[in-house]
């Protein structure tokens, strides 16, 4: 570490040049953080899917409803712990831009099958006692300024009540939090019994089922068994693990991973060139000085390490600043983007990957100049001075 001073002073040599290279690196890592957040928002849900949950939907089309009577039949299938359903409500709160999900559910079963939804027991009790009650996630509650006790009107684009009224009013009885950072706390959930009784048509029909299975390793077998049960019924089913379902959904959005990787690849390649060029120039200019160091008695390996340490220090400094800036900016963007990308955050995993890239960048840009420095013949170098 006594060499740190020497390395640092060398970096300060051409302040303008070093600052500019540093700034390009900072920008590159800011982009990295931003793209990591985007990728997480679009396809990250897969990692959080329950390994012990299956999703059952209509085989022909996702917009077809399934009979509520299927629930009892599903519960009897071996391997199934229990099942519960949800339905797409398609509601709008004040402005279509305020998009978030609202689904009617069976409260007790719903909370049991989704342990990542954290609701205080007293609020759960209130929900079970209030027919028109609804629980909402912390994110939406904060966004719309809702508190427990508020009455919230939501207009459904699909479901109407008997008086042809498309606006449904719910009482907020609970605000839930998510167990993980990536748990979606934008949806609102209300009671199915209230929904089914009040809706004009489609009674006794639901959108999709979630099944909890007893043994996650049996997922594929149980899924097959469920579909077999309803084969040749008016509504045939398609059952798959929750992770696969989310992944299929994400894949429809597009090959996001490919696009993001492509962009990042180009960005890093460009930065590599810029930084590599800077390092190469820096070493070329210092041929004489490196010769002096060798004359004083620095070994070849020491000179190589010196050059690599310099490039790694530069890359890591830029990377840390860039990632730091990304950590600050991403939360600021989360609010305005919440309509389009409800879960916008920078996963910690990405920070570690980013740091890894820093080191890699430092090594790759430093290696050729370092080898050149190593091969330097002292006598030639001194003469060139």
């Amino acid at each position, binding site marked *: 570490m006594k060499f740190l001073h020497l390395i640092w002073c060398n970096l300060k040599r051409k302040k303008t*040049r070093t600052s*500019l290279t540093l700034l390009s690196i900072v920008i590159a890592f800011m982009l990295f953080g931003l793209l990591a957040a985007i990728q997480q928002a679009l396809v990250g849900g897969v990692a959080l899917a329950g390994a012990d949950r299956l999703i059952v939907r209509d*085989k022909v089309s996702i917009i077809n409803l399934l009979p509520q009577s299927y629930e009892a039949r599903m519960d009897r299938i071996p391997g199934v712990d229990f099942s519960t359903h949800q339905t797409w409500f398609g509601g709008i709160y004040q402005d279509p831009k305020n998009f978030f999900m609202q689904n009617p559910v069976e409260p007790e079963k719903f909370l049991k099958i989704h342990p990542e939804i954290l609701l205080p027991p007293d609020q759960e009790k209130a929900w079970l006692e209030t027919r028109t009650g609804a629980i909402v996630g912390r994110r939406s509650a904060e966004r719309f300024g809702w508190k427990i006790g508020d009455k919230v009107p939501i207009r459904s*684009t*699909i479901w109407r009540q008997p008086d042809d009224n498309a606006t449904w009013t719910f009482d907020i009885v609970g605000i839930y939090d998510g167990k993980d950072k990536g748990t979606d706390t934008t949806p609102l959930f209300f009671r199915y019994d209230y929904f089914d009784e009040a809706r004009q048509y489609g009674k006794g029909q639901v959108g999709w089922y979630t099944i909890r299975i007893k043994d996650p390793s049996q997922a594929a077998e149980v899924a097959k068994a469920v579909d077999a049960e309803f084969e040749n019924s008016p509504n045939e089913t398609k059952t798959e693990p929750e992770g696969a379902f989310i992944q299929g959904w994400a894949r429809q*959005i*597009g090959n996001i991973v490919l696009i993001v990787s492509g962009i990042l690849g180009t960005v890093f390649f460009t930065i590599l060139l810029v930084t590599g060029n800077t390092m*190469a120039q820096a070493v070329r200019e210092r041929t004489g000085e490196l010769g002096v160091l060798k004359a004083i008695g620095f070994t070849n390996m020491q000179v190589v390490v010196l050059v690599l340490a310099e490039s790694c220090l530069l890359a890591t400094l830029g990377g840390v600043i860039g990632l730091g800036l990304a950590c600050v900016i991403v939360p600021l963007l989360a609010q305005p983007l919440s309509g*389009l990308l409800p879960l916008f955050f920078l996963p910690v995993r990405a920070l570690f990957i980013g740091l890894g890239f820093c080191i890699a960048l430092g090594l790759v840009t430093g290696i050729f100049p370092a080898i050149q420095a190593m091969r330097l013949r002292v006598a030639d170098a001194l003469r060139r001075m």
Partner: protein
Amino acid sequence: MAGPVNWISQITSITKFGLLSLPQRRGAVAATIIGIAGVVAVLVGVLSISAGFRQAMSASGAPDGAIVLRSGADSEMVSGFGRDETRVIADAPGIARTTNGPLASAELYVIINLPKRTTGTDANVPLRGVEPAAFQVRDNLNIIRGRMFEWGKDEVIVGQGAVQEFAGLDVGSTIKVGRYQWPVVGVFTANGGIAESEIWTDAKVLQPAFNRGDSFQSVSVRLTSPSTFQQFKDSLTSNPQVSVQVIRQTDYYAQQSSRLTLLITVLGYTIAVLMAIGAIFGALNTMYSAVASRTREIATLRALGFGRSAVIVSLMLESLMIALVGGLIGGALAYLAFNNFHTSTMNFQSFSAVTFAFKVTAELLINGIIWALVIGLVGGIFPAWRAAHLPIAAALREL
């Protein structure tokens, strides 16, 4: 300072010296060119996604077309009409008429599961049941392979976008609709518009397959002219028999894609801006060192009498030329890699898949070149200024 002709010849000389010394600096110059090319390629590539999407959207709506949905529905999917209501709508004034009747097509819009060719995972593909007028209500519909389906028969035709993106839609294959197997008899194009993402069949045949009774979801009409829209709309919204909203086709498609377009555009530009800033730093770096390595040469020229502004202008020219080369290469790369790259995405608003192609438009390419020149300009001006204002004596001594 001598007159303008002298000034121009000074600039020419200095620029010439600069270009002659390029081979010595080829490493640094190449790095800058590649860097700028990379930025421009990514910029144009990312923006070609939204350009392609927008083009697909705008090719979908005819200016004299209109669509009628149930009031309160924000897309066809959640709208609903009975047969009687569709008749009332078709009788409204303002609709173009032929000997066969009004150009109005009552339509059913559902989604079916089909695997994507690229990943094998399911996608929600739109399946539309139409009436005969559907082909006159929209522009540019052409059967390019196979044939049109026969009315009343369990047959479908598929859009060119759909057949490219989803498996099992080639002419001759069958698709499963519920418990039915329907053959695909033809492929159609619609000028690149949204309809190409869809599968079409006779509405009367689709209704029983999806247990819809005699109901529809929308009515698409062709007006006698774009100006009759207001008349058409007013007559329906004031009619107590129906509860509708009337939208121009062009507006409808724009609305339907607004969220997706916004997302792609915002993200695209954010990424592009950040990359451009990074590239500017890179270019500054290169130009600074380019100038630094020629400090003595430039000082000598100034000592000989070449003017400051001539030095600045010629250094700027050099920077701009390098940037231009980078921009052209980047634009060419983007065009080759991305133009007409076919893909599909999901329209959040309607849950259904939308197929479209990336489009590297002339406008995008020009923008890309302009970005490159801006980078070259900003990257070149500070070093040039500095070089021209360095005290000559000190610069001459610099090793």
